[in-house]
């Protein structure tokens, strides 16, 4: 039997949802009939609105997805102004205050505490600068990720931005591809550093060369079926297809249609294309694509550039991220700024928007490491830019522990989460920076924290992988993390294996400190990378190198943050929740 979600989608989905959102916004949150909540909140996702977790009813997370993470001049500032006007909650976050934007691992922006009543005005303002929330969540083409420095980087082989934008323009609000069995995540890489992270997407275009009719053509090899979620991580599989830039949109459309028609609509937990790929394998997949979904002869795969992939690769020589000052092919510079756990307070965000306007072109690009990049900074302005106060905090030259930190949304807003994430990761990074000396030669050290197995922080491809858990300590359940090692992308990508499980969250910084000390002591030489070191050892040996212990690190979130209405509120008990609330914030009394 088709799931409820499939039935709701059959009844009304895609662009038809817009008018209904406008209607509910006009009439107020209470106008959504009680027995239709589930259906409407599912549909709202298609327009980038995700109902926040229990205790926060009537507030929404809103996701804005610029293809390839490119925010054109003026777009970043508009988002900041929207956050300033509409993204304010009933309580403060102790680290980030009230009012901020989140840069996400899929190069989008998330705003929280959004009121349905404000959505039409927000949509209008976004549209006035060419932005949209369409398909940012829901069962369709999500934000298309790709090289965030496309067009601006010396490592580029093919223009990823052109294809990402073309795919965005073709497949957003495209009726034939609006209703897929599940989310659909697409990546376009154009450089030889692999910063599009195609391996962990449903559909990946990766730079390649191919002899076609006696001429060398630069285009894309195609991989399908990657993803990290639900304890079932997969790398995208090579389906032996090369697409010229002219063919790429048709190939993408064919694969999306194949998924639309063949993905599992009976069971949402089996619906992602990675499971269809498990079932079919790449040969049958290619055959079906060729026979039923494209009307030209597909080329076999070309010569790829994976050998030099360095993004999130742990041991390669090239860039591991986009932080820092880098020369563009045109002689200007792009400047990558570190954003700790992806969150920027509104006041600082205005300063950043000013700095991008004054010293660069005003473009602000978003990376898959939750950072931002200013482009087109003339050489003579680089020093001026670097001396701006706001760059002290959002630094082009951060400490490796700050630079390497990624965290997902967590119990603050997410229903799936088991633990608090962002504030905790900020505390971890600060403690590690102040207390742990990195071993000689280690300039990059990535620690990714996800609140649950959905893996939004991409934990399985970090040096240290952290994932939310619980354990019992002194008889009480406390927040804990599983610790994984050995993950990374690159030519030979690998997922972390979970080495130490259920480590109380307050013992994790001690565990990382001890692990690094043990690494320094036991490694072959000062040139051996952490990833190589881990790769040489089996899980048991590695487990001995992680020695969790309490330190002077203090963790205020050990109690069950999930069973609060907001983990940092003075009175955080679920029963004290001010939600649901009317548009002006007055609580709506509930009858039960």
């Amino acid at each position, binding site marked *: 039997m088709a799931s*409820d979600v499939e039935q709701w989608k059959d009844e009304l989905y895609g662009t038809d949802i817009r008018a209904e959102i406008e209607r509910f916004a006009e009439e107020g949150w209470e106008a959504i009939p*009680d*027995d*239709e*909540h*589930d259906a409407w*909140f*599912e549909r709202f996702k298609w327009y980038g609105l995700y109902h926040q977790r*229990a205790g926060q009813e009537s507030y929404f997370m809103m996701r804005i997805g610029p293809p390839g993470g490119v925010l054109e001049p003026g777009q970043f500032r508009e988002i900041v102004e929207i956050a300033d006007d509409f993204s304010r909650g009933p309580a403060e976050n102790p680290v980030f205050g009230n009012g901020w934007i989140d840069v996400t691992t899929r190069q989008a922006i998330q705003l929280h505490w959004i009121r349905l009543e404000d959505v039409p005005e927000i949509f209008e303002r976004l549209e006035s600068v060419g932005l949209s929330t369409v398909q940012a969540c829901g069962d369709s083409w999500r934000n298309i990720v790709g090289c965030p420095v496309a067009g601006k980087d010396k490592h580029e082989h093919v223009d990823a931005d052109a294809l990402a934008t073309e795919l965005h323009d073709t497949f957003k609000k495209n009726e034939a591809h609006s209703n897929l069995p599940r989310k659909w995540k697409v990546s376009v890489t154009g450089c030889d550093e692999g910063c599009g992270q195609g391996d962990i997407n449903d559909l990946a275009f990766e730079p390649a060369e191919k002899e076609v009719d006696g001429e060398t053509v630069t285009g894309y090899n195609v991989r399908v079926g990657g993803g990290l979620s*639900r*304890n*079932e991580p997969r790398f995208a599989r090579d389906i032996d297809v090369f697409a010229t830039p002219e063919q790429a949109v048709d190939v993408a459309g064919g694969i999306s249609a194949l998924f639309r028609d063949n993905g599992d609509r009976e069971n*949402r*937990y*089996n619906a992602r294309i990675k*499971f269809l790929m498990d079932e079919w394998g790449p040969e049958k997949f290619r055959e079906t694509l060729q026979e039923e979904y494209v009307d030209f002869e597909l080329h076999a795969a070309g010569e790829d550039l994976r050998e030099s992939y360095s993004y999130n690769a742990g041991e390669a020589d090239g860039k591991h991220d986009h932080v820092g000052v880098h020369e563009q092919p045109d002689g200007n510079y792009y400047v990558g700024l570190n954003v700790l756990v992806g969150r920027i307070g509104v006041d600082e965000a205005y300063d950043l928007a000013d700095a991008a306007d004054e010293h660069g072109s005003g473009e602000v690009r978003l990376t898959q490491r939750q950072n931002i990049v200013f482009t087109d900074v003339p050489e003579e302005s680089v020093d001026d830019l670097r001396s701006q106060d706001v760059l002290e905090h959002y630094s082009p030259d951060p400490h490796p522990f700050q630079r390497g930190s990624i965290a997902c949304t967590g119990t603050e807003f997410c*229903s*799936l*989460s*088991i633990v608090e994430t962002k504030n905790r990761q900020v505390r971890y990074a600060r403690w590690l920076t102040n207390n742990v000396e990195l071993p000689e030669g280690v300039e990059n050290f990535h620690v990714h924290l996800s609140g*649950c*197995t*959905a893996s939004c922080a991409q934990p399985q491809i970090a040096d240290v992988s952290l994932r*939310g*858990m*619980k*354990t*019992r300590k002194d008889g009480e*359940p406390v927040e804990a993390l599983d610790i994984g090692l050995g993950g990374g992308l690159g030519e030979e990508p690998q997922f972390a294996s979970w080495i130490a*499980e*259920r480590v109380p969250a307050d013992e994790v910084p001690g565990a990382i400190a001890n692990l690094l000390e043990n690494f320094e002591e036991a490694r072959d030489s000062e040139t051996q990378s952490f990833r190589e070191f881990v790769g040489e050892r089996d899980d048991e040996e590695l487990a001995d190198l992680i020695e969790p212990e309490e330190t002077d690190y203090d963790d205020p979130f050990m109690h*069950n943050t*999930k*069973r609060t209405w907001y983990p940092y509120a003075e009175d955080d008990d679920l029963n004290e929740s001010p939600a649901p609330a009317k548009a002006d914030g007055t609580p709506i009394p509930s009858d*039960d």
Partner: protein
Amino acid sequence: MTIAVRTLDDGAWISVNDSRQVSVSDVWTLSHGTFCGCEPAYVLLEGFFGVDVSGSIVVADTVGRCLDCGTQDSIDRLPVGRIVDGEFKPYGPEGVQSIVEPTSRTRRE
């Protein structure tokens, strides 16, 4: 009256009559079960994959992990609450639960 039960948001919730009633990622105390050797077992539920009403009892298919021994397994038909006069009364994770029907099927998470 009819009772609408379903899992929502990728297994984050059990919704009863369009209200989010039982949340994933909580620790449940399971007793007299076949989940693992621990007695009682403190089991973190990691996702709901199905839900059903059996008489007046709402039962969920879920996957969990024991906080003491680390066993990870699926649990079929875990009672999560009751319907009384058309209203859902959650058992809540704090109380001690018996697994009424032992795990029989293995499901993909």
